[in-house]
C-alpha cells in the first residue's frame, strides 16, 4: 500500500513568500487525486515537496508511514515542460527511470540488465511510443515528449506518481491523450497519483478526488459529487471563472451558455 500522509506542510520561500500554508491531507493507495488552483496558489510547491525536490519549511510527508526526505524511485515526477533530455532518444530517456537500480558500470555504458531494458520498452509501449523508441526526444512533439516523461516515470516502478501541470503546454487533443495515459497507468499499476491542473474541464473529466489550493492554503478536499460550482468559486476566487474553464480547454469557441453548462456540472 502507498498511503500518503501530509501533515501541517508549510513552505516559505525567502523571508515572506508563503507558498504553502499548513496543508494536511491523506491519500489512500491507488487514489487518483487532482490538485487545483490558480497560478501561484502553491500546486508546484506541493508536488515538489512530495518528490523531495524542495524541502518543506515545516511539516512532514510520509509514505506508508515512512517520512520522505530525499528523492527516491518510489516517487515519480512528471513535469509541465516534460524535462526529458532532448539529446537522448526516447528509449534512453525511458531507461533513465531505472538509474537508481543500476550500478556505476551499468549506467556509464548503458548496460542495464535486460529486465530494465524490457521495462523501458514496455513503458514506451504503454504510452504508444514503441515505434518512436529510437527517435531523438527533441525532435518529438510536445505530446510525445510528455508521454516519454510518463514512460520514464513508469520505468521507476514507483508507488506514487506525481504530475505537475502535465498538460499545460499541450494542445487540447494531446492534453486529453496524455491525461488518458496517466489515468490508465494509474489504474493498471495501482499507482497512488496526484496531478495538478489549472483547467477545470479536464479536472472534472478525469478526476475523482480534488484538492483545491488558494494562496497556499487547502480550501477544498473532496470527491466529484461535492465539487460544485461554489467550490470552484472558492478555489478560483474573484477571477473570471469563464476564462479558466475555457482556458486551453477542449473547446475555446464555446458559447457563453455552453460554458455555463460546463460550470454547472456536466463534464466536457
Amino acid at each position: 500500500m502507498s498511503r500518503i500522509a501530509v501533515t501541517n506542510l508549510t513552505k516559505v520561500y525567502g523571508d515572506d513568500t508563503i507558498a504553502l500554508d499548513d496543508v494536511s491531507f491523506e491519500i489512500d493507495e491507488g487514489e487518483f487525486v487532482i490538485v487545483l488552483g490558480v497560478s501561484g496558489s502553491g500546486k508546484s510547491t506541493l508536488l515538489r515537496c512530495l518528490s523531495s525536490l524542495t524541502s518543506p519549511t515545516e511539516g512532514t510527508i510520509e509514505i506508508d508511514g515512512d517520512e520522505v526526505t530525499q528523492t527516491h524511485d518510489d516517487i515519480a515526477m512528471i513535469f509541465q515542460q516534460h524535462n526529458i533530455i532532448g539529446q537522448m532518444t526516447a528509449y534512453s530517456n525511458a531507461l533513465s527511470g531505472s538509474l537508481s537500480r543500476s550500478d556505476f558500470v551499468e549506467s556509464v555504458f548503458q548496460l542495464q540488465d535486460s529486465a530494465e531494458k524490457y521495462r523501458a520498452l514496455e513503458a514506451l509501449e504503454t504510452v504508444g511510443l514503441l515505434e518512436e523508441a529510437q527517435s531523438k526526444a527533441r525532435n518529438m512533439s510536445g505530446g510525445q515528449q510528455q508521454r516519454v516523461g510518463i514512460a520514464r516515470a513508469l520505468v521507476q516502478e514507483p508507488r506514487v506518481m506525481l504530475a505537475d501541470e502535465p498538460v499545460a503546454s499541450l494542445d487540447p487533443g494531446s492534453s486529453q491523450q496524455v491525461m488518458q495515459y496517466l489515468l490508465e497507468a494509474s489504474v493498471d499499476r495501482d499507482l497512488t497519483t496526484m496531478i495538478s491542473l489549472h483547467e477545470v474541464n479536464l479536472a472534472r473529466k478525469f478526476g475523482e478526488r480534488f484538492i483545491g489550493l488558494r494562496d497556499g492554503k487547502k480550501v477544498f478536499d473532496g470527491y466529484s459529487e461535492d465539487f460544485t460550482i461554489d467550490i470552484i468559486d472558492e478555489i478560483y476566487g474573484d477571477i473570471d471563472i469563464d476564462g479558466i474553464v475555457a482556458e486551453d480547454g477542449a473547446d475555446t469557441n464555446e458559447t457563453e451558455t455552453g460554458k455555463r453548462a460546463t460550470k454547472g456540472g456536466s463534464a466536457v
Partner: protein
Amino acid sequence: MAVEPGRNWQRYDTRDRIKRLAIAVLAAATVLSSWLWLDLDLQYVASSPPELLDLAVRMYPPEWAYAPDIVMPLIETIHIAVVGTILAVVLSIPVAFLAARNTTPNRVTYAVGKLIVTVSRSVHTIIWAMLFVVMFGPGAFAGMVAIGVRSIGFVGKLLGEEIEEIAFDQVEAIDATGASTFQVLLYGVIPQIKPALVGISVYRWDINVRGATILGVVGAGGIGVQLFDAVDAFQWSTVALILIAILGIVLLSETVSARARAMVR
C-alpha cells in the same frame, strides 16, 4: 516632432570630442615611445627582401630524398596532439564543473576552477614544454603533457560556459528519479554538453597539431626536432621540405576538424 531648423547636429558633444582626441594622442604617444625604446632599425626592413630571396633560392629545391625520414616525426606530432588533447579533455571535465557557476559546490571550488583555467591558459605551450622536459627528460612524453596541460584551460573554460547554459530542469528531473549524483551528471548533464564537448575537443586537437610542430625547439618531440636541427645545420632545402610537410598536416587537421565539427552540430 519636427527637426529644429538651423540647429547644428553633431555626432559627439564637446566632452566626447575632447575624450576621443585625448585617446588618439595617447595611442600615438604609446606607439612612438615603444618604437624609440625598442630602438628599431629600419636597415633590416630595407634589406629583408634580398635576404628572403636569398633564403628562397637556398631552399629550392626541397630535399625530397629526406621525405622518408620525416614520416615518423610527423606521425609523432599527430600522436602528441591526439594524446595531449585526450589528456586535456579528461582532466578538463572536472575543471569545467568546478568553473561553472551552476555546478560548482561553493565559492572556493569556483575560484579553484577559474584559477586552473587561468594558469593553464596564461603559460605558453613552449614554456610548459620546457618545464616538462626538465621534469621528464626530452622527448614526446614531455610534449604530450605540455599540450595537455596547456589545453585544460581552453577546454575547461569553453566547456564550463556550456555547462552554465544547460537546462537545469532536465537535470532536476533525473535527480527526481532517485539517481545518484554521478548518474545525474551522466544522464542529465553530459548529454546536454556532448555536442559541445566533441566540437571543442576536435577544435583543440587541430590547434594542438599546430602547437606540436614547434615543441621540438625545446626538445619535446615532434617534427620540430628535425626542423630546428636542419635550421641549425643551415640545411635549407631540408627545412623547405619540413615546412611543406608541416603545412600539409596543418591543412589536413584543419579540414578534419572542420568536417567533424560540422557533423556534430
